[in-house]
């Protein structure tokens, strides 16, 4: 069961059982009863599934992953550039 979407918490109810989340401009209420007390705050990113907050998204880890991807892209660009130069050196049309 996997369709879960990242959303941002914009409001938490007083009794902390519900919160309001925003996903790309669409807002809905979500249930907090699966989360430990005091663990979710406004501004947090959370994973939403069938109307419940399933877990908080670890921002540091997310940014670390994105950084990894940036590096792998740079590596690929570097390799492509080197390959392009190599191909050019071996170009038969000159």
């Amino acid at each position: 069961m996997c369709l879960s979407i990242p959303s941002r918490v914009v409001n938490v109810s007083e009794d902390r059982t519900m919160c309001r989340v925003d996903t790309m401009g669409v807002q809905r209420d979500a249930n907090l009863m699966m989360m430990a007390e005091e663990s979710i705050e406004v501004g947090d990113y959370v994973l939403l599934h069938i109307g419940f907050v399933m877990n908080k998204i670890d921002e540091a880890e997310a940014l670390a992953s994105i950084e990894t991807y940036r590096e792998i892209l740079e590596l690929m660009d570097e390799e492509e550039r080197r390959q392009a130069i190599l191909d050019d050196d071996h170009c038969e049309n000159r």
Partner: protein
Amino acid sequence: MKALELKNLYDDFRDGKTIQAYAKRIAADAKKLKRPINIMEVCGGHTHTIMKFGLPQLLPETINFIHGPGCPVCIMPKERIDHAYLLAMQPEVILVTLGDMIKVPGSRGSLQDARAKGADVRFVYSPMECIAIAQAHPDKKIIFFAIGFETTTPMSAVLIDQVIALNIPNILFHINHVTVPEVMVELIDSRDVHVDSYNNQIDAFLGPSHVSVISGSKIYEKFPKAYGRPVVVTGFEPVDAMEGISMIVKQFIEERCELEIQYKRVVSYEGNLKAQALIEKYFEKVSLFRWRGLGNVPDSGLKLREAFDAYNAEVIYRDILPIAQIEDHQLCICGDILRGIAKPPECTIFGTACRPNSPVGSCMVSSEGACSAYYKYGNLL
């Protein structure tokens, strides 16, 4: 490091160039593999991602996918779908379930068919909607037909919790929750017994994304340790999938066999402890639960604890619910597909007699089913 924006959580994990970069890396690493490897993605959501984003088109031939049975609708045996049908046909019942469930055919028809015959069948986006339905219809019995793996089980538990706390007299439950590790064991064991060549051996697992959010990655410990199969718990965006596959390939070329987490932004070793406690409070394992096509997978099913019999539709309606096992249509090979022994195009009725709008087997009905994914996305492979 700059701040994280919501957009990043979508776009960066779907970026085309990153996908291509991983494809190149995997291709380079795969050259060092000693033999082809078979990766089973357990979860239907992963099957969907792999097929929809055409990932097999980007990977070398030495990497093969075996599609797992991680589709909670697909694995429902016909007799339990018949339970839903029969309960729905009771005049005092409003049967409530999640989306795809209403299209799966049992031996008498699907819930959609029951609805066309006058039964009150509703699908909801969240189980909590049952409460409003129950309050609006005090004269009716609302039966929540609960399905799903560990991901959705805690939500059913919260609903039960609230039903008891708010003293709602007219909500009952029919529980069909199943768990993942037991079926993974069954799939490995049955192969070790039946299949000789490693054409069909499962070499590694792409671990489910959101089951793991709830249960923690700890539930997969035994696979590298006792079964020699690496597990990489992976997210369901295409970049996640490619990174997860890359991590598996690396394990093979570095001769490691470990449990790793790719989906670090939401999966931890321990998981969501409160959710686990809720599950423990209301459910216990049932020794006999038949998975469609796989037969009984011991200890993989959940049922309501005896203390909550008053809320258990299976107990209250015991007299009208059949227990005889119903076999699938002869030509349907959903069982083999759920085991990962066959791929959908190998089924003789795939795409002809069995199509999304006239499904014979459940793998075609559910949007996470392998057959449905292949039908929708697989023709260009």
